[in-house]
């Protein structure tokens, strides 16, 4: 290996190649497993299909036998077509039924045309042994009409093998979701592992060696891995230890030498030498290296949000199951209560957690939050009444708010101001990627193991996120930047800013209202009422997170380049509001799918623009209150939409149906967007915002 630049290779290419390699292995092994599973399914289900055919065939043969015994000839049986036709109607998987004489003459047949396969059926009839064989896309089962040991004819039933392929079809969708999620998980885990186990120690070693060249030696005992890197770090520490030992020896003996030696020239020479060495040699011994790189918070954030998102797709459905009347409130409103109170507690916990994060360790807040959430998730799984469920969801929300604030504060603490947007982008992408994975996987889990077990799995993953933080994340010892949080005066100052208030009331709050109403409440309960499978509900909810995850960063870059945030806010708001049209004009399942897609498109366009514009609109206020404070107040106010959304929706559904409620909410959002746009056009000057 000549002039191979290990440092550069490690930084750039390793992540890329490892990712590609893992995906490649994943794709190939998944395909193999999928194909093997299909074969197994055919093998295991075929005997059951045969059993079914035999049972159905027996019910057909018995009256035929009776008629023959009474003297009717096989080809003179009356009403047999009707009998066959009724059987076909009752057993959808059976595609054809036919009666052949022993010599192979077709007497009666019902169902699909057997013209193409009639010779194969005849061949099967003449074969000895097998009751069922696969012919084309059917499993043909033959049953003899036997009277007193003499076979008079055969009944043939064909079960469509598409029952197996449709089973595989269902699994295919879920498998694709699993594969997609595995991609995201691969990215998250490899990202962490390569950074934590390779990039970070190599960077430390590189720094240590660069400093070593200059005589500044550093013990590397904090690199504790038991691999090639760890082995090297041990040896390096031994090297420094040897040098340190001799240096300390000289240093300790030098004062004695100075006092005891009478040879002045030796003392002067030695002193000069010793001073030289002291100037050239610096040995440092750090207790530990802090893991303060912002991307390390992404993995526990991912795990935590993933755990919490597992229940998104079925939360209102689960509430509906637990429903019992409360204080005469309408049922649909009671069903929405766990979502409303979750959002309420989450919103309220934000400022308090923010204040706490200023005076306490982020790690501690994360751990407390994760513990509360874990207890809440366990409790939710064991709830028997809606009130119990409500209480556990509130506890989960408290923890949820704390963890999210701890993560944001960790990023703010560990990134310089000029890199904060990038730092928060790590937070946002981690959040959405976990949300996408969680909602889809949660739906698949709920579909297969049930709601309660899914809550248990959530709780376990939430514990894992806590263990991760406890093991890998270390806090800063000093909090250099104290985030300023709320006071009533700061609210009053901000409320006076008209462009800000119009954006807040006409765009931001309605956006969150639409999000919480459509995604968290109406979609699960509406699709469930339509008989949609739980995993399909999860896939549909996933559309929102997926679009946000993919488009948000791209649009953020574009918005930065074009530098016209108001334009992006307006376009986003128009698109989000137009989500009403698919509901009106298409309706049903696809109407909802297009509605979510438009909503996600709109939000992905205007969400980042809104966050970016706040410090600009509130420039004056930010100079007094601080940028962090105005952003926090904005987030707090915007989140009220999360509370209003399900509250209003619950009340509307209690009075109207899902469709009308959705139309009313979308219309309100649409009207508010128009107000905002009119405001922007009328007051062009005050809305002319550029960075």
């Amino acid at each position, binding site marked *: 290996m*000549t*002039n*191979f*630049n*290990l440092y*550069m290779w490690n930084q750039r290419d*390793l992540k890329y190649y*490892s990712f590609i*390699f893992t995906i490649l*292995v*994943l794709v190939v*092994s*998944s395909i193999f*497993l*999928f194909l*093997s*599973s299909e074969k*197994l399914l055919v093998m*295991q*289900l075929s005997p059951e299909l045969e*059993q079914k055919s035999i*049972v159905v065939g*027996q*019910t057909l043969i018995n009256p035929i036998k009776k008629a023959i015994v009474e003297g009717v000839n096989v080809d003179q049986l009356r009403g047999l077509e009707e009998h066959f036709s009724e059987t076909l109607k*009752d057993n959808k998987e059976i595609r054809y039924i036919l009666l052949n004489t022993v010599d192979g003459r077709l007497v009666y047949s019902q169902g699909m045309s057997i013209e193409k396969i009639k010779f194969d059926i005849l061949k099967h009839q003449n074969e000895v042994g097998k009751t069922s064989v696969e012919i084309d896309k059917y499993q043909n089962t033959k049953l003899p009409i036997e009277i007193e040991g003499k076979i008079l004819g055969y009944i043939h039933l064909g079960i469509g093998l598409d*029952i197996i392929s449709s*089973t595989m079809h*269902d*699994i295919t969708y879920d498998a694709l979701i*699993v594969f997609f999620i595995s991609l995201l998980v691969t990215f998250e*885990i*490899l990202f962490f*592992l390569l950074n934590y*186990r*390779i990039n970070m120690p*190599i960077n430390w*070693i590189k720094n240590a060696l660069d400093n070593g*060249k200059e*005589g500044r*030696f550093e013990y590397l005992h904090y690199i504790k891995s038991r*691999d090639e*890197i760890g082995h090297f770090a041990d*040896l*390096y520490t031994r*090297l420094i230890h*040897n040098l340190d030992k*001799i240096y300390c020896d*000289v240093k300790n003996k*030098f004062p004695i*030498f100075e006092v*005891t030696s*009478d*040879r002045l020239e030796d*003392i002067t020479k*030695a002193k000069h*030498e*010793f001073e030289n*060495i002291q100037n*050239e040699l610096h040995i440092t011994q750090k207790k530990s290296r802090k893991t303060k790189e912002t991307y390390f918070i992404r993995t526990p954030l991912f795990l935590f949000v993933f755990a919490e998102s597992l229940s998104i797709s079925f939360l209102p459905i689960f509430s509906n199951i637990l429903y019992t009347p409360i204080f005469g409130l309408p049922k649909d409103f009671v069903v929405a209560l766990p979502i409303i109170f979750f959002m309420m507690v989450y919103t309220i916990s934000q400022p308090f957690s923010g204040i706490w994060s200023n005076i306490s360790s982020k790690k501690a807040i994360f751990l407390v939050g994760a513990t509360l959430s874990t207890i809440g998730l366990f409790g939710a799984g064991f709830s028997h009444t809606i009130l119990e469920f409500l209480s556990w969801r509130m506890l989960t929300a408290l923890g949820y708010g704390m963890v999210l604030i701890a993560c944001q504060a960790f990023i703010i603490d560990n990134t310089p101001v000029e890199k904060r947007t990038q730092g928060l982008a790590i937070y946002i992408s981690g959040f959405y990627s976990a949300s996408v994975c969680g909602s889809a996987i949660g739906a698949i889990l709920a579909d*297969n193991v049930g709601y309660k077990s899914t809550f248990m799995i959530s709780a376990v993953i939430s514990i894992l996120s806590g263990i991760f933080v406890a093991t890998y994340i270390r806090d800063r010892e000093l909090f250099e930047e104290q985030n300023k949080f709320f006071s009533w005066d700061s609210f009053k100052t901000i409320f006076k800013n008209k462009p800000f208030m119009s954006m807040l009331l006409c765009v931001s709050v309605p956006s969150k209202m639409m999000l919480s109403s459509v995604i968290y409440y109406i979609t699960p309960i509406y699709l469930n009422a339509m008989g949609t499978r739980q995993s399909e509900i999860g896939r549909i909810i996933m559309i929102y997170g997926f679009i946000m995850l993919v488009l948000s960063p791209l649009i953020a870059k574009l918005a930065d380049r074009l530098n016209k945030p108001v334009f992006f806010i307006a376009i986003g708001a128009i698109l989000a509001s137009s989500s009403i049209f698919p509901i009106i004009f298409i309706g049903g399942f696809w109407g909802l799918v297009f509605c979510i897609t438009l909503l996600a498109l709109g939000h992905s366009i205007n969400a980042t623009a809104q966050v970016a514009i706040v410090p600009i609109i509130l420039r004056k206020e930010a100079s007094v209150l601080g940028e962090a404070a105005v952003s926090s107040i904005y987030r707090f106010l915007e989140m009220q939409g999360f509370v209003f959304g399900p509250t209003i929706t619950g009340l509307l559904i209690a009075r109207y149906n899902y469709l009308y409620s959705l139309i009313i909410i979308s219309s309100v959002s649409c009207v508010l967007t128009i107000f905002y746009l009119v405001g922007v056009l009328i007051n062009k000057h005050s809305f002319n915002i550029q960075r």
Partner: protein
Amino acid sequence: MSLTLKISTAILSIIVFALSLLVFLTYFKYESTLAQLVRSRFLVIASDIKNTVHRGLSLGVTLSELQGIQEVIEEAKNNHPHILSIKVFEFTSDDQAKTVYNTRLAGIGGNIPELWLRTMLISKKAEEWYLKGEEANVIGVPIVNNFGKHIGGIAIRYSQHYIHEQSVQMLNNLLRKLSLILTAVSLFVLVGSYLLFYPISKSFSRMSNLLESYINRGQIPSHNGMDELEESLINTLKKNSMLLKKLENLKHLMSLSSYQEK
């Protein structure tokens, strides 16, 4: 644990996660499809008995006076070993029903469990109702008289054991396939990780050898054919060696001076 092993373990964990989820999905899908097929099979039997009962009723005979029903249900039970019992029952009031025919003769005349009746009443599909139990499942169809009135029903109780047994067999087969695939994948991942991380592994092993040879023998090799980190290490070692020499000289000077003085 070497770097290759560490990375391989991580990659394998991800693959195990994804493939296990696939196995899990297939298993649950199989279980539900099988349960559905078994249910539909017993529904056919129940419907067949119902047709026999309806034929009798259409002749004006009451349910309890029908002839041959006991034989029909017993034959059905004997032909299908997974059937635990078949009951034909008749409503005695709106919320009570008694067994008229039963494959367990001792059960004739007994009341039908309340849960069955409730399920039957709330069942949206008038043609059938279904109850899932721990040990056994029940599938039922209503009996309607000539005036379209529900006068009773037929319930088949069948063992869950069969579905469970088949599902376990499927799971074992799936796990066998999974373990085979994982064995092959493990080898592939090990080789792939080794090739991917070979440069880092090799470079650190070489640097460790350099360090060891320096610590044990004080040798510093030349710069030829080295990467950036190795070059930094050589320069660090040179600096270290120079400082060590200076310290040794100083130590020597100090000891010499002390000796001469003595």
